[in-house]
């Protein structure tokens, strides 16, 4: 499997962190607060959708709530593959960082 991109990594981590409350708005908000990534309301679904298709995320529909005008939320959850991918990139990072020489300027 390919190495996931930095953005994908950030999104996956966000979903992981948000646990049962990972849906469009919360994901957007966390990405903005933590990483400064500014997605539009619609735009966030593009990478989310891609990750679902890659099998790293699954989505499920929540119940409609009145403050959403009767609309339900779409929640996202990591799949085992998603966790794998994250761990792999973490290992990769560790290997890449390990025993680096002093920077010479």
């Amino acid at each position, binding site marked *: 499997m390919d190495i996931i991109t930095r953005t994908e990594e950030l999104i996956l981590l966000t979903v992981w962190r948000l646990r049962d409350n990972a849906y469009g708005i919360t994901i957007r908000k966390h990405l903005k607060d933590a990483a400064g990534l500014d997605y539009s309301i619609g735009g966030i679904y*593009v990478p989310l959708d891609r990750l679902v298709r890659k099998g790293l995320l699954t989505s499920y529909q929540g119940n*409609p709530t009145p403050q959403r005008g009767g609309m339900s939320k*779409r929640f996202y959850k990591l799949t085992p593959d998603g966790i794998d991918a994250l761990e792999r990139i973490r290992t990769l990072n560790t290997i890449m960082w390990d025993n680096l020489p002093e920077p010479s300027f």
Partner: protein
Amino acid sequence: MKKTVKPGKDEHIHGTPEMARRWLARMFPPYYFQAIAGDFEEEFQARLRSESRYKTIIWYFGQLLLALPMILHHFIYWSAAMIANYLKIAIRHFQKHKGYSLLNVLGLAIGMACFMLIALYVHHEYSYDQFWEKSERLYRVVRVEHEKEGIEKSASSQVPLGPELQSAFPEVAAATRFWNVSRAIVGYNGQYFREANFYFSDPATFSMFDFHWLAGNPEKALETPNSIVLTAATARKYFGNESALGQVLSYDGWVGGGKREFLVTGIIADLAENTHLDFDFLASLQGISTEATNWGSSKPIWTYILLQEKASAAQLEEKLPILVEKYLKSEHPKFLQLEPINQINLYSSYKGGFKTHNNIHNLYIFSGIGFLVLLLACINFMNLSIARSLKRGKEVGMRKVLGAARSQLIKQFLGEAFLMTLLALCLAILLANISLPLFNELSGKSLQIFALGKAAPAVVLALTALLVGIIAGSYPAFYLSAYRPVDVLKGKLPGDARHGNRRISLRLSPSILRKGLIIFQFSVSVMLMIATMVIFRQMDFVRGKELGITQEEVVVLPYSPAAEAFMSKISQHPKVSTASVSQRVPVNNLNWDSGPVSRPDDDLRIDIEGFLIDEHFLDTYQIELIAGRNFSPEISADNEAFILNETALKALGWQSPEEALGQPINASGWGKPGRIVGVVRDFHIGSFHEGIRPQMFHTFRQYTYWRTFISVRLKPGDISGTLAFLEKTWREYTPAGVYEYFFIDESLERLHRADIRLGKIFASFALIAIIIACLGLLGVASYSAEQRTREIGVRKVLGASVSGLIFLLSREFLFLTVSAFLIAAPFSYAMMNAWLQDFAYRIELPLDVFLLSGLIAFTVCLGAVVLQALKAALANPIDALRNE
């Protein structure tokens, strides 16, 4: 599913802009709508708490814009997925119903190919003389005369007309004449040929018509006397690969007073096929003084003018009566008119001119057939598509249940129709290419499929295919997509969809539509059949008509200076019956001379056409003398004698031949006054569209120069031996001559060729139309039988006989054919009656033709349907009933 996502009106949403919400619903796929609309709503409400409503709304729209890339991404991804799915289903359907699909595509392809060929032909005919640089300003001068017995329209003009037009009217920038020398003898290096397309012309020709020059100077080419310009093919004929420029050709013909020599000063490329101009030689008229001031008689001269840039033809035409008044005064009204050169091919009704031209009516007929054939093919396609698509009710139901919107289904079915049409289009191009040589032979053209150059034809073809796709695919698409999934899935026959969705109720149920289409198809086929048969009957009639002249077995040879000795020699041959010398031969009257004739006791002047003959002519052609006597060499008064036909007699005002015999007439155009010595029965030589015109004969005497042809009537048997004898003998007496012979009836055939051609083309396309209609019927019949398999099974089990079943299945279709016939008959009656009016000699509309074509349609239909019915009726009922 889509409906549930629309936020209901009763839900209270404070102020998300309604419009934006609707956009949202439209933009996002249903799958995402819930999530995204919810997000929008939630965030909107949150913002409203901290910011002004105005700002929030702006933010909202901004977010909508930002979402665009995602929407696009989505749209493309899912469309591609759906298209892939549609394609897969379409291909599976094609494979599953190979027979139907092939029938469908093939029928459409044939129709399209016909349409293409006809479009090509029509385009070609319309392109005539459009390509000259100055074609908008070029006109042919023609003459209309209102004579007692009708209107005479002719393109032939007088020698001085061209120059006079140019000097008298400032509007005329240039004028030129083409003076036809039929049967000139042209020679080079001891080789001689008779040339029919030899013309004398003015130097202005080359400033008016931009021919493609291969050699020589267009401005100077005809300036000097005795110069000549050849077409490339002619130059090759005489000089082979040598350079023709500067060579000298010998000439012998009546224009220019006998023998001359011409210096070749120019070679032009062969004339385009789409010009009515037709010549091989253009010799200079400079220094040819023949009848330069003779306004008295018209000659085979076609006069053309080029107008000044700003001049108007209509205004010039109004001034032309001045010229008529001055030079062409006659008792009956006479007009000169200007005919735009690019309209000659299609609209000209004037006698004479370069080529026999086409007729706009023929073009209308052809276009009509082209459209009809295409329409029939479309109907076929539609019929079969409907029949087939009804079986797909379950698929449609399933798709709807799984969330397909109606628009998607419409797209799917239209798309499938396009796919089929595209396939048909490719096949049609192939078919058209293959059948083009055949079509060319039939139409006498040399068309090429993409000869039109440019992208235009490709665009036209693509548009046609698109249109056909829309027409053919629309009904199934709109009809099927309107099913209510519940009904379809419950197994309700989609046929009675009227009980289906009330919101989209289509009043045309497929079975009624299908019946209507079949009736239409068959009426058109029957009409075409009737038309074809009537055309052929008329052709037969024309060929078998009592002509008053017997053209069979007359062979025509060129004149020999030793004609008398030659003729006495050949008349001893057992297979030669008679022989005669004449100025022209009665093949057609296009190039006959004509001149005014009048009675001394009357002011009435009639243009009578005719030529010079000898005393054997009437015998040779078996023209019946009904009063008076033939010319005779013994009677010296025959110098001033005329033999008239009945029409000429009546035109001059005599009631009976006896009255006219011995009467004097003035024939100034014919040289001198004379007396009527004989009257012949009217005989027929022209096209049968025209009636008989006044004609007369004069005898040679001092006009020996005009002796041009020897006509020999042969006795039946050993034609080739007799021909060989004639040639040998002729050569003996005429060592330096050019021997050529032709049979009169062959030339006659050529004259009627346009009509014969029309008949053949018509027949071919009618046949194709009928085949297409039958293909469609076959498909629909077999579908209908298939649909009733179970019913037939049950009936068989209950003891129905095979013949009873066949009757059951055929009844409906036979009813359709009968109604089709009843519709077609009156239409074709009116149509063919109108067509026949165009002939001066015509048949009565034969009623048996109607019955016959009705019978044929009925039989064909019966054949197709019964075949299918038989198949269904003979099948083992167990096979039919075992399912389910």
